[in-house]
């Protein structure tokens, strides 16, 4: 056997036990001995090369995501569905801090908006607190005028309610009038005159005797009425001097409304006592 023939045997049979002829050639050929020894050393070294290498986890994550996207993996990780909770736990959701904060902010914005609208509508003319308000806040015995909602008197039959309604309409927020519109119109003057007449007639009809059964309260109500009448008289005097004084006109309007409310309260008190 020649060296080439031995190599052909190695190529076809590998390094496994060689046939007799090849072994005889090997015994006498150092080149082939070296070749066989080197190839065996390579095989042994190859066994030390790791056959497995752990891949990074991101590969499977990526493969899995792709397979799920393609619908090949059909049962993705089961989603944990919470057990049905009792109905009252729904209310507990309302009191979570985030929900409360959101609701609070919303309410603040809503009420702030209302306040701004109302404030702008009333502060365009910058009304000062009326004497009745000031006095009522200073005097703890003062009975505040009742709201119109609790007024048992029907609006159509109650002249004071007409005054209140007309006043509310007159102070409703409107675009600021031009200089020309600041002049009192004949209808406005007539309205003020009518209001004064109605209020005077109502005041005259008040019972002279005690109203509420409480002398202190009666005295406080009558004192408020006197103060209000004095303020009204002052406003009317100023308007006579300067009919174009829009601010005084507004004050007078508000004073009429307060007087109407006060008279309503006084009349209601007297009526309920009887």
């Amino acid at each position, binding site marked *: 056997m020649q060296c080439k023939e031995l190599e052909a045997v190695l190529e076809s049979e590998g390094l496994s036990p060689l046939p007799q002829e090849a072994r005889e050639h090997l015994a006498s050929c150092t080149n082939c001995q070296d070749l066989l020894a080197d190839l065996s050393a390579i095989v042994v070294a190859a066994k030390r090369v790791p056959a497995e*290498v752990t891949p990074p986890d991101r590969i499977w994550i990526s493969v899995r995501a792709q397979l799920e996207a393609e619908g090949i993996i059909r049962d993705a990780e089961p989603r944990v569905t919470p057990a049905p909770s009792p109905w009252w736990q729904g209310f507990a959701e309302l009191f979570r801090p985030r929900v409360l904060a959101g609701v609070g902010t919303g309410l603040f914005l809503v009420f702030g908006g209302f306040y701004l609208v109302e404030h702008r509508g009333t502060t365009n003319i910058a009304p000062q607190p009326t004497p009745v308000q000031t006095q009522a806040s200073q005097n703890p015995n003062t009975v505040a005028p009742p709201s119109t909602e609790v007024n048992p008197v029907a609006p159509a039959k109650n002249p004071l309610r007409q005054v209140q309604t007309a006043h509310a309409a007159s102070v409703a927020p409107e675009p600021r009038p031009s200089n020309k519109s600041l002049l009192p119109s004949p209808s406005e003057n007539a309205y003020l005159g009518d209001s004064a007449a109605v209020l005077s007639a109502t005041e005259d009809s008040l019972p002279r005797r005690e109203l509420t059964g409480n002398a202190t309260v009666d005295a406080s109500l009558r004192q408020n009425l006197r103060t209000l009448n004095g303020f009204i008289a002052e406003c009317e005097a100023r308007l006579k001097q300067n009919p174009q004084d829009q601010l005084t006109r507004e004050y007078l309007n508000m004073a009429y409304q307060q007087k109407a409310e006060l008279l309503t309260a006084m009349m209601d008190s007297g009526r309920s006592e009887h």
Partner: protein
Amino acid sequence: MCSSTSVLGTTLKGTRRIASSSGAAIGLLARPRPTEPVAWTEAEAIRRSQAGDSAAFDFLYQLHSRRVYALCLRMVNNPADAEDLMQEAFLQLFRKIGTFRGESAFSTWLHRMTVNVVLMRLRKKSLPTDSLEETLDPDAENSSPKRDVGAPDLRLSGAVDRVNLERSIEQLPPGYRTVFILHDVQGYEHNEIADIMGCSVGNSKSQLHKARTRLRELLQEQIRDQARQERQSAKAQTGSKE
């Protein structure tokens, strides 16, 4: 001669290499994740994955990913490319798993896909290596490594370490490299390699022998280079002393 007996889709020799490296029994080769309730056989995992069971996909991946990754890594010598190739190989595998009928071992089927993906990538990259057709043709002139008759025969015994060998493997043509890694590193038999590579058993044996002899030349060159550098450095030291 070839142990083609399939046990759970893995041949005996392939199993030996897997078991020896992971220390696990057949069918329990993959390190089960803590959430996995059972350790399936490979056949059962294949059947379940064909029905779209995500845990079965996970099981099969864990079972084979380390060997596939090692193959890709040895073939391209670049971790990023290896990850990319492995991902592509497993995507192809799982996309086609519904067509797997068990004619060949599952690992063989998987490695065939992996080798195809890797070789396709190497062809696209047009690396300065021999083409697969050339290296798989035993009669081609360039495929037969020539022995340098004039060069001294260096004994490699004791001089072949893992680093030198891996460096030399990198320089092998893709066809040689694939056969050598599959047989000598990963422990596949020639009939399996023939199935993976799509060639005959004789061709696989021939490719393996040529790969080994080419490695011998490359290692000898490395040893010569190292000896030359040592001589030059020794000369430089003696020159500086004089």
